[in-house]
């Protein structure tokens, strides 16, 4: 083969191509191994070498070829191996898979199942590359050859019709014709600004100068963007060919590829491509025998983001500091070395050969009115399919993120996508159906940029995002303009103060003013867009800034200084979990007990039935399992009870204003306790014969033994709280009556225990019970008439409690639960569901009742229907849809309806002139819990609807603070503080061995046999050794703040 000899004319190029293709045909199979940067990191080179060795070993050299290609784009699944010509797609190939691929797939044409990609939507395995959903919706024009060719082989490029566009231009077109073609195609600059490429070329072409330059801009510096890099690495000749055509059209003699030195493969591949092209006379004098001469040089940049700005880039090529200059004069007039210069982005150049080959009219059919062609996006962040995607302009964000990108990992919620890098902006979830082109992005407050797309989920704090980009920009500003250099620095400082919880509201106004000035007053594109991260997050996520500023809360739990230790931060009752855990680790249990009691009037209860939001946010769960915080708390309480430890009450000044609390549930008791500690005489009025509210009436004893509740109640009474039972609001007392009895403030916390109706025929029959009423009966020791076969309807905690209680009823033989969704959607605590199943409760998912079957007014059964999960509704859960014709009947004696509870405030407070919502809850100011009636406050489930115990405690505490302010005669205002512990405990040193072994203890439970017919507590406590070991595992996030770091070593 006449390799590496200059190609002297157009015919010769065709001949060579034909020859290469003939040679290719001899080998039947090609194993292509993705050689993109991502796959390199996964070790694709070793995989490729292993393939080569294996092929040699099995003597297949003549029929199989191994080729390291450009980037395939699906970086998430690297190293990627595609077997051509079939296009069999293997992903995440390891060295040990190589032998099998050769012997099975290559030799015997067998597909290896475990190496295939599994479509997460359908759970089906996909064999061929083009059938993978990630590729299916893409239109890979520019990237199309990346996966087929070896970028270091010019032959490969020629084989895929490479340099035919150049040949066409040189043999049949004049420069103005080429420019006209590009103009007609509608191609716009892919570097970000989107200036029409043809017009740009025309200006430079018309500039009166014998010497002209063209430049390829590959100074790609946006965080998370790597499409230019991939293109230059994966198909450098397509960029070269584009530049050659451009140079011919513009009349340039020299070209420069400006590429970052930190892109070593890109530098190597483009340099190699230039070398090869020179040898083939595709660069140099009289290219392809024409009188067109042109050469390209590589210029390496030192990785300054600002050098992507064209005037700074030219300064950098000239060897000066990369600092932008005033335009005009534009580079087209006075560019490199003062000569007219045309600068285009890598992707723009790579588009050119396709336009020339297939024609402007073909190209302009792709895309939208104003934006033609395809665009490569770098899809990164919180997305399942990280990688490079090429799509036609005008595709919606939803298609890119969900159809191609595969959505958000771990089923989290999509929040925003950042496009265009540091100069771009964040586009919120509401705009997910936005078709992507230059104009639509600009209208949404962002830019196309070079095509970076950083996807963010619900765990992303948008203020933190703004801080991140500002930090990048204050580093990367060239520093010439005061507005940009000082502006980005000061904006960063302000935003940092906000994320540290140290800023004031007026700082937000200053930030906005400054952002406007930076945008207005700066010289170059970098400065003019440097405020975008702030402006766009302010535009769509202003509430997040305000939450940080006013409430010192970071809803996404990101900002370290604000969050401190997440367990304490998230706890509605402000329990200092990290502090008492640290004290347990040191063995100081008495102090741990004090810390727990300090903030929580019902710790013995919480140690057993709390839904522990703290454990859900525990940072230890990022690498393993969360700390067993609830079990640790219970351990301390049990220890205190067995040592007869009594908490001390702080001294207080007694006050005269009497306070009434209606409802002795967790909210009411907490408010009463705190107010009592503040010195107010408090009376709690409770409708039922016992105190404790739902804790006493709803939760069965197998979860919450009564002596645990009693211990907390004793302590509350000891603090001075009077509890009057059997006193019903609306019957025995009224709010107005309480005021006339001399009470100065009233807190209503009557809870929400009205069972919701099933709304099906036959509901009134005997044998249909309401979940709440059934639980009340058994908890008060009354007889509940259950039949032999019981069905509980619902998926919440009440349903599970009722079912587990029924299992303990000697007359029951079969207990089942019908729930219309699946286990994943069940709102009940998963440990409860698990325990119910252990105990023999038969949970039937995706089933809903249609009709109660009766006989003589008594239940004899239930007609049900099967459901299937449809599309996601507003709450993000998939909606159950009935499957018609799937009705079935169950024989039953008792039906317990437990599909939910609601408040019933309207009937309780009739005629009291207190505002009631449409959900029958009392309307309160969420900041203070004040109602519309002065002196009347409301909280807990009666105000919020059914929630958890710990939330009710939080509400009670909040109400107590507001009421105290009210009684002192000041307007109640909620006080917000940074989340800090009251005490910093020295951290423990763990040996490497202990760290390696550390794991969450298995919480002991009664055996299923022991639970039978018994209401003994199921979950058992930890012993001291277990508790201390578990406490030592804590990561001590409370020490991660500035305050925490300072405190280490101070109080040993």
């Amino acid at each position, binding site marked *: 083969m006449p390799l590496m000899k200059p190609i002297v004319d157009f015919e010769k190029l065709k001949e060579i191509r034909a020859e290469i293709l003939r040679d290719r045909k001899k080998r039947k199979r090609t194993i292509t191994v993705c050689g993109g940067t991502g796959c390199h990191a996964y070790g694709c080179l070793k995989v490729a070498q292993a393939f080569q060795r294996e092929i040699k070993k099995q003597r297949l050299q003549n029929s199989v070829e191994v080729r390291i290609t450009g980037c395939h784009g699906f970086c998430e699944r690297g190293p990627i191996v595609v077997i051509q010509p079939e296009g069999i797609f293997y992903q995440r190939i390891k060295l040990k898979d190589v032998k099998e691929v050769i012997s099975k797939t290559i030799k015997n044409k067998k597909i290896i199942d475990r190496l295939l990609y599994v479509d997460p939507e359908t759970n089906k395995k996909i064999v061929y590359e083009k059938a993978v959903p990630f590729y299916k919706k893409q239109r890979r024009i520019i990237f199309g050859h990346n996966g087929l060719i070896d970028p270091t082989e010019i032959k490969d490029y020629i084989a895929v019709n490479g340099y035919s566009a150049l040949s066409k231009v040189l043999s049949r077109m004049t420069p103005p014709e080429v420019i006209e073609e590009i103009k007609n195609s509608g191609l716009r600059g892919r570097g970000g600004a989107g200036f029409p490429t043809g017009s740009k070329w025309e200006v430079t072409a018309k500039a009166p100068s014998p010497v002209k330059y063209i430049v390829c801009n590959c100074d790609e510096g946006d965080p998370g963007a790597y499409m230019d890099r991939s293109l230059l690495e994966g198909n450098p000749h397509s960029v070269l060919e584009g530049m050659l055509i451009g140079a011919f059209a513009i009349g340039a003699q020299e070209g420069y590829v400006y590429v970052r030195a930190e892109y070593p493969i890109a530098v190597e591949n483009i340099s190699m491509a230039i070398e090869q092209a020179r040898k083939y006379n595709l660069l140099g004098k009289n290219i392809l025998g024409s009188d067109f001469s042109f050469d390209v040089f590589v210029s390496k940049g030192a990785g300054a983001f600002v050098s992507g700005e064209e005037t700074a880039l030219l300064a950098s090529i000239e060897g000066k500091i990369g600092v932008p200059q005033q335009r005009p004069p534009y580079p087209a007039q006075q560019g490199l070395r003062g000569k007219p210069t045309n600068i285009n982005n890598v992707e723009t150049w790579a588009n050119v050969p396709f336009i020339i080959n297939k024609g402007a009219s073909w190209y302009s059919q792709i895309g939208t009115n104003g934006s033609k062609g395809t665009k490569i996006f770098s899809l990164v962040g919180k997305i399942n399919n990280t990688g490079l995607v090429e799509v036609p302009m005008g595709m919606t964000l939803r298609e890119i993120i969900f159809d191609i990108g595969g959505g958000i990992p771990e089923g989290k919620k999509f929040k925003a996508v950042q496009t265009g890098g540091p100069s771009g902006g964040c586009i919120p979830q509401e705009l997910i159906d936005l078709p992507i082109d230059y104009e639509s992005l600009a209208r949404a407050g962002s830019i196309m940029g070079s095509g970076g797309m950083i996807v963010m989920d619900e765990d992303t704090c948008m203020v933190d995002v703004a801080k991140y980009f500002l930090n990048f920009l204050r*580093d990367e500003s060239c520093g010439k303009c*005061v507005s940009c250099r000082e502006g980005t620095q000061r904006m960063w400082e302000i935003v940092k103060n906000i994320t540290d919880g140290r800023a004031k509201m007026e700082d937000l106004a200053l930030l906005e003013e400054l952002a406007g000035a930076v945008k207005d007053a700066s010289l170059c594109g970098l400065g003019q867009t440097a405020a975008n991260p702030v402006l766009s997050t302010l535009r769509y996520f202003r509430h997040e800034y305000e939450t940080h500023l006013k409430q010192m809360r970071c809803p996404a739990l990101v900002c370290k200084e604000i969050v401190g230790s997440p367990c304490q931060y998230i706890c509605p009752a402000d329990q200092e979990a990290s502090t008492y855990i640290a004290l347990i680790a040191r063995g100081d249990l008495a102090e741990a007990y004090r810390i727990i009691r300090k903030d929580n009037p019902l710790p013995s209860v919480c140690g057993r039935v709390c839904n522990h939001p703290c454990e859900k946010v525990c940072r230890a769960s990022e690498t393993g399992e969360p700390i067993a915080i609830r079990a640790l708390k219970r351990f301390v309480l049990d220890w205190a009870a067995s040592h007869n430890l009594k908490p001390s009450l702080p001294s207080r000044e007694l006050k005269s204003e009497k306070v009434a609390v209606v409802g002795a549930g967790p909210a009411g008791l907490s408010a009463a306790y705190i107010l009592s500690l503040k010195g107010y005489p408090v009376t709690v009025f409770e409708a039922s014969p016992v105190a404790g509210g739902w804790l006493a009436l709803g939760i069965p004893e197998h979860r919450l033994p009564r002596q645990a509740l009693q211990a907390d109640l004793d302590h509350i009474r000891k603090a001075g709280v009077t509890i009057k039972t059997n006193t019903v609001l609306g019957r025995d007392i009224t709010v107005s009556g309480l005021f006339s009895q001399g009470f100065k403030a009233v807190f209503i916390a009557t809870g929400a225990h009205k069972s919701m109706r099933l709304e099906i025929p036959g509901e009134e029959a005997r044998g249909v019970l309401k979940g709440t009423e059934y639980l009340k009966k058994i908890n008060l020791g009354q007889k509940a008439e259950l039949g032999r076969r019981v069905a509980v309807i619902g998926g919440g905690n009440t349903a599970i409690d009722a079912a587990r209680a029924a299992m303990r009823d000697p007359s029951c033989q079969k207990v089942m639960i019908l729930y219309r969704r699946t286990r994943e959607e069940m709102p009940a605590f998963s440990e409860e569901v698990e325990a119910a199943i252990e105990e023999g409760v038969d949970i039937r998912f995706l089933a809903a009742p249609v009709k109660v079957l009766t006989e003589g007014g008594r239940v004899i059964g239930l007609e049900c229907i099967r459901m299937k999960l449809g599309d996601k509704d507003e709450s993000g859960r998939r909606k159950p849809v009935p499957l018609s014709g799937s009705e079935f009947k169950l024989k039953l004696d008792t039906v317990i309806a437990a599909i939910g509870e609601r408040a019933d405030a309207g009937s309780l407070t009739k005629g009291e002139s207190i505002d009631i919502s449409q959900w029958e809850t009392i309307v309160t100011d969420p900041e203070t819990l004040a109602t519309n009636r002065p002196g009347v406050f409301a909280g807990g489930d009666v105000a919020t609807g059914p929630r958890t115990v710990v939330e009710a405690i939080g509400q009670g505490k909040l109400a107590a603070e507001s009421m105290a302010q009210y009684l002192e005669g000041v307007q109640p205002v909620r006080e917000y503080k940074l989340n800090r512990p009251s005490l910093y405990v020295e951290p423990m040193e763990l040996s490497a061995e202990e760290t390696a072994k550390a794991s969450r203890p298995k919480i002991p439970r009664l055996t299923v046999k022991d639970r039978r017919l018994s209401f003994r507590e199921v979950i058992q406590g930890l012993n001291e050794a277990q508790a201390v070991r578990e406490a030592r595992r804590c990561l001590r996030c409370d020490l991660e703040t500035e305050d925490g770091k300072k405190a280490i070593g101070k109080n040993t």
Partner: protein
Amino acid sequence: MIAIILNGVEVQVEEHWSVLEATKFYGLAIPTLCYHEGLSPFGGCRLCLVEIGEAPRTKLISSCTYRVEPGLIVRTDTRRVVEARRIMIELMLSTAPYSKVLQDLASKYGVTRQRFKPRNDECILCGLCVRMCAEQMDGRAIGFQNRGHKKKVSTPFDRRSEECRLCGGCIYICPVCQLRCQGPQADTALCNACLTMEPTCLEQYDELRCWMYDAGRCGTCVQPNPDQSK
């Protein structure tokens, strides 16, 4: 000669002038810190910003670096311009709070608050010293180092430079590090003691025809300072 429209008046200017030179020629006082007649223009301090173009597509440019072009519409003291200059003064003052030049500018522009934490770098990176050394003294002993917030003026590798002849040109031309403000040097970093300076006609105006010798005297343009009127 070409014609441009300066604050609503068509005037003739030399083709090679910058916008700043044109405004100077017509007697308009535009504040500058990084500009010097004997040195190449830089465009870093952003004080000489003017608004060019026709509404609604006007923009701010630094007049020292922008060459005049036929028909260019220039407005030198619009509200947008003045507000941008105020922020620039506040930003620079926060890095060089003791500079008399900056304190005077703050007084003149009614910058009465310093909302950024003073840093006292005693340098605003205007680059006058760098250009003075290179262009007038042929020294090239000093230059810029780093970029972004780490940018500073220094000799190569922060060592004493062989090129430096200790001529003092850099110190002579520095607008901030020599003249110290003698007013109260409180933490607020703003003295505003010089508010009694010459009455100025600095308030915003879009188009004004008394701009040559009547500046401030006709009374139409003197409006209360928005910060003081609050």
